[in-house]
């Protein structure tokens, strides 16, 4: 077995600020290691949400990102991290990357050609790191990666958060990025998720919408690599004409959930996590709609505890939370 797996809850996708704060506090109380605050051009502003989460919690680590290096300057990102550090101390980690090409285009940010993109992201990381170092801020910087251009940069970062969920895609990404289990950057997975004991149709539909966002943002090369091009690529045209992904959900095959999310029963979770651990993954972030309600957050925590006992009975994942099951 590799290093101990750590787990996070993704927040800031379609929820109101009050709910985000409540669910983050629940995640901390239930013993999750991280709350990851997303930052997308159509959602609440991640840095301010991270501040509100920090104010309502005391020990859970808070990840901020993906902060797009195309939407923000390195100086702006560094200033955000410095402000959070000054206000709440060493509780934050940063994830940067290019971001979702389609969403960025909607706000007037046009992605550079691939050959220019990688140096830009790497340059941003180095500049942020330099500013933070000069101001005494210590934080890990993760790379949010999916396509080949970003994966090639993975080794330059403290960690890489892969936007994949299927083990075969994660294996490919790790191999492509030249990552190793025993040394180098930490490997994480951050995907839409719905781990449940009894599925609710409404939440399954949200998992489909969330998976669709990832599918539509996946590069053509990756889709071809996994023979998913025909299934998802053409739908992009319809998606580009529609303001929301929900409007084209009916055109997407149901497999999108299996292809791009961690949607499964609590019973299936141990074997899934064991596969990830064997690949060298050390950090798993359960994205929207896992945070749909306090109950779904609690279900996740219980499922993780059960999974941990099953996977490693000799050193079961010990909850730091107050709630025991």
């Amino acid at each position, binding site marked *: 077995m590799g290093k101990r797996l750590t787990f996070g809850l993704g927040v800031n996708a*379609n929820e*109101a*600020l*009050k709910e985000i704060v409540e669910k983050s506090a629940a995640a901390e109380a239930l013993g999750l290691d991280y709350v990851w605050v997303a930052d997308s*051009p*159509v*959602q*609440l*502003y991640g*840095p*301010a*949400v991270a*501040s*509100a989460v920090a*104010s309502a919690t005391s020990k859970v680590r808070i990840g901020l990102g993906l902060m797009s290096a195309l*939407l*923000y300057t390195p100086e*702006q990102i560094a200033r955000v991290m410095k402000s959070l550090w000054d*206000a709440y101390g060493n509780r934050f980690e940063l994830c940067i990357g290019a971001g979702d090409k389609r969403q960025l*285009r*909607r*706000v*007037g*940010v046009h992605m550079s050609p691939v050959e220019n993109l990688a140096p830009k992201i790497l340059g941003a990381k180095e500049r942020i790191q330099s500013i933070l170092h000069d101001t005494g801020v210590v934080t890990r910087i993760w790379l949010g990666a999916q396509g080949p251009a970003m994966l090639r940069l993975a080794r330059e970062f403290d960690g890489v958060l892969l936007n994949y969920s299927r083990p075969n895609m994660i294996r490919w990404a790790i191999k492509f990025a030249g990552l190793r289990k025993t040394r180098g950057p930490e490997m994480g997975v951050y995907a839409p998720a719905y781990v449940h004991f009894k599925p609710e149709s409404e939440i399954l539909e949200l998992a489909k919408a969330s998976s669709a966002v990832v599918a539509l943002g996946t590069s053509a090369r990756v889709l071809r690599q996994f023979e998913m091009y025909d299934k998802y690529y053409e739908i992009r045209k319809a998606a580009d*004409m*529609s*303001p*929301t992904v929900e409007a084209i959900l009916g055109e997407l095959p149901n497999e999108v959930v299996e292809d791009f999310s961690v949607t499964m029963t609590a019973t299936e979770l141990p074997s899934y996590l064991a596969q990830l651990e064997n690949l060298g993954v050390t950090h798993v972030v359960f994205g929207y709609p896992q945070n749909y309600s306090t109950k779904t957050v609690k279900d996740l925590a219980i499922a993780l505890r059960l999974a941990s006992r099953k996977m490693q009975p000799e050193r079961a994942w010990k909850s730091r939370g107050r709630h025991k099951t």
Partner: protein
Amino acid sequence: MMLRIPDKKVGIGVTSPAVHNITTIARAAVTLSGITPRRFRLGLGVGGLQDLSKLGVTSERPVGMLRDAVRCLRRIWAGETLTVEGESFELQRYFARYQPRYRIPIYLGVRGPKLLRLAGRIADGVLLSGPVSYLKKAISMVRSEAAERGTRSDFRVVVWTPTLVMRRKSDRGRAKVVAATVIADTPLPVLQMAGVSDDAVHIIKRLARESDYKTASDHVTDVLLDSFTISGNPEQITEVFQSLEELGADEIVFGPPYGHPVLRSVNEVVEAWESA
């Protein structure tokens, strides 16, 4: 900070659409308004000349940019799916998945005559700074525009001036550095409205650009110091605040550098204001 002062109104003064994507401003404002329900105001402006220059940002159409920004923000917050292909912004079928729970007031931080008129026409309030002689004209101009659209009573005028309680001789030197900073950032139309000749400040602007504010401050005269900062003892500062109120200011922002020590300085001015 907002979370630590639960009963005070909070405003951002000012953020610039020349520096931040308009959708970032829109969602940041909604997030902050969620943290401080009904207490948050968004200050929007082009940005200081020096700051923009350092960032390599130019704003050739400040009036158009701020007008477009205000319209755009209100439409995003109203839940419209927005396509904008203007000179200032580009949005393609943008739909925000966040909505403010109440109308977020927009205050424009502006100085020149065209921008002042724009603020009176479209904003909920204005953030002003500059010499008192300028403020008198600016308040009159902006109030007159606001009156034309029938919002005179709701429209708020906020005056933001560097304020310094002076206790020692050395404080005067610090105040001059602040004045040099403000002067360097003050555009020609504002100087003209204030009756300050360009010749009087030319060298200060040049030294601030080519050297530093400390060097430039050697050329700040007593007249310029009194024009561009509010400094003195708490009673003298209070008198200036009262004169600003008489000119039509609704709120005064006690701007930095405050004085040393800061808390004592602020408290003394508050006490002087309350007993005046």
